[in-house]
């Protein structure tokens, strides 16, 4: 609704209406946090093309259509997952449907001592003090307006605490299902992960959409890593083409932490993965990688912000994408090196393959450096398949479409090969192959 300043703030009303009835209401800090979210979103409004980090991803769809907040989790069963090996992997399973924990679908038996995996709302009711030092502490509401909106709706999702020195024996698999009905559905899941000193864990996220109408999934995850902690984080974003998927992740990294993230995005009418990593202690090592696949009129956005606040940290980013049809890819990556962050080693690279003359990539790698003893680089490439390589394969009798698929897969496999968990790497590869089989067909030879 317009407030006179030209801002549109759709969904703010829905957040304010519901807030007083939520768990945690009456707890001062929770009230204050929800209010801060509503205020920040209200001030900023729905992101517009004027906003520096929303220049290429247009959210008008969210203003044109009114999505209604999901009313509880429908009683759907666990659907078959699109990735076979990860589905068969021994994991601790957390299932969230329409932003609400579904305890009956979770599998959390045998969690080690000093590890808690729970619904956020349950914990907010039972032990809010446990959440207070962490929840809402690292999301910069003024820099992430959609995360601010999520904060205004703050209610449920996954909360995970891993105690000091605990090495979690199995990955945690967070399965997020959006189950729209026949009217446009909105979900606002909120996840919190806290790793103690020298704790180590693997988190796999799967985002899928059940059959139904359009949906808007606005997710926020906050990851706190105490000194020496290690987190491997893999994300499959495979929502339906009727979905707007916006994900905002903030990770606070203590000294000598390692955060290794890999995001595969191929779903959604709009799919955005925004990751803010704060290297707050010396010796932190942050790796943000991703692969994306888009066709038709999809928009796939990878936006990263890496802040080197402490000396001697390393960050690496490699994003690779394949764009077909009239799809658009967006890479916006900023490495921000503060004055004290000497001996920073920061690199970022965006590479896109354009399979169609109407596909587009907007790449904006950015370095902002205030320290004087740093090693930083960035780069972006975009182009078509290499003619020499294609002819080489053709000249060996490999049919043109097979040759194109081989070269595209090869282009992506260099990134996927870096994934340290074999089942994830294989499932990503399988997914890429299926996508290529569906999208790189014999009718499209244009090279």
């Amino acid at each position, binding site marked *: 609704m317009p407030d006179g300043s030209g801002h549109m703030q759709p969904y703010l009303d829905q957040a304010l209406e519901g807030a007083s009835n939520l768990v945690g209401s009456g707890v001062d800090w929770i009230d204050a946090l929800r209010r801060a979210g509503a205020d920040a979103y209200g001030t900023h409004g729905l992101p517009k093309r004027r906003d520096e980090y929303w220049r290429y991803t247009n959210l008008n769809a969210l203003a044109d259509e009114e999505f209604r907040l999901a009313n509880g989790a429908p009683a759907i069963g666990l659907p078959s997952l699109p990735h076979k090996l990860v589905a068969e992997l021994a994991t601790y399973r957390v299932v969230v449907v329409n932003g609400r924990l579904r305890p009956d679908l979770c599998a959390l038996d045998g969690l080690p001592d000093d590890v808690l995996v729970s619904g956020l709302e349950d914990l907010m009711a039972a032990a809010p003090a446990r959440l207070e030092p962490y929840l809402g502490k690292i999301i910069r509401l003024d820099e992430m307006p959609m995360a601010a909106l999520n904060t205004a709706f703050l209610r449920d999702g996954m909360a995970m605490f891993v105690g000091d020195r605990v090495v979690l024996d199995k990955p945690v698999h967070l399965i997020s299902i959006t189950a729209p009905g026949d009217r446009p559905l909105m979900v606002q899941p909120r996840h919190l992960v806290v790793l103690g000193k020298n704790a180590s864990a693997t988190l796999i996220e799967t985002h899928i959409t059940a059959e139904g109408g359009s949906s808007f999934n606005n997710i926020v995850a906050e990851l706190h890593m105490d000194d020496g902690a290690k987190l491997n984080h893999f994300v499959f974003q495979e929502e339906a083409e009727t979905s707007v998927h916006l994900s905002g992740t903030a990770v606070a990294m203590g000294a000598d932490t390692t955060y290794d993230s890999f995001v595969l995005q191929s779903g959604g009418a709009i799919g955005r993965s925004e990751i803010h990593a704060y290297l707050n202690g010396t010796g932190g090592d942050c790796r943000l990688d991703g692969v994306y696949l888009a066709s038709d009129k999809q928009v796939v956005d990878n936006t990263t912000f890496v802040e080197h606040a402490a000396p001697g940290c390393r960050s690496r980013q490699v994003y690779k994408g394949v764009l077909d049809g009239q799809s658009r890819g967006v890479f916006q990556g900023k490495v921000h090196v503060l004055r004290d962050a000497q001996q920073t080693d920061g690199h970022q690279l965006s590479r896109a393959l354009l399979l169609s003359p109407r596909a587009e990539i907007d790449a904006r790698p950015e370095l902002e450096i205030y320290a004087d003893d740093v090693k930083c680089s960035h780069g972006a490439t975009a182009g078509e398949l290499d*003619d020499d390589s294609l002819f080489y394969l053709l*000249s060996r009798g*490999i049919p043109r479409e097979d040759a194109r698929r*081989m070269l595209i897969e*090869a282009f992506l496999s260099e990134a996927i090969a870096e994934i340290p968990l074999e089942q994830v790497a294989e499932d990503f590869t399988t997914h890429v192959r299926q996508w290529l089989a569906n999208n790189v067909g014999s009718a499209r030879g244009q090279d």
Partner: protein
Amino acid sequence: MALLEIKNLHATVDDKPILNGLDLTIGGGEVHAIMGPNGSGKSTLSYVLSGRDGYEVTGGEVLFDGKNLLEMEADERAREGVFLAFQYPVEIPGVTSITFLRTAVNAVRQHHGESPFDAMDFVKYIREKAAGLNVSDDMLKRAVNTGFSGGEKKRMEILQMAALDPKLAILDETDSGLDIDALKVVAEGVNAMRSDERGLLVITHYQRLLDYIVPDHVHVLAKGRIVKSGGKELAHELEESGYAEFLEDAA
């Protein structure tokens, strides 16, 4: 019927005429060498025969086993039995050599109605071919030509030729970038493939390669045409006299 018949072939690259009425006939079991100065059209001929995009045929015809070669796409020509050993083999990171070889060999096998190799059978098949060429399992596991030395790349080309078993092999400046020992290995690999059915077209600037792959016929290419043909002794004459007389004659 000849294996390959090139009649009055004209071709352009970027609208610039490169081949200007080239005639050449190669029979099964014959080894022909084409020699010529830089810019005479040697590499263009190899690309026109193998069907590379951007090489436009503006006149003439090419029959391969009696079929119109120029109507076929590059991949189809390869499956029909035309093989080009590249002067500069292409590096393809992300595709292992063994996968590449198996995909190619199976494409050719299926084209001829044979069943494709499974992974295990293919390893046996390719190891046998690789042994004589000093291509190690390690090379087969690495990405295609990626980080290979000049010698390794050329050995891999010949391995591909052996694996694909073409009717006609075109060797484009196969000696470039090779020292004498590497050249001998490659030449032995090529000679091992000489047979009564297979035709070889060896394109080279220097006579050196022809000491090891001895041709039945030698042709001089200048300004896009064959200007002189002879036996293997012609290569030695050229080594003595150079190409200057042909450049003048053809002008």
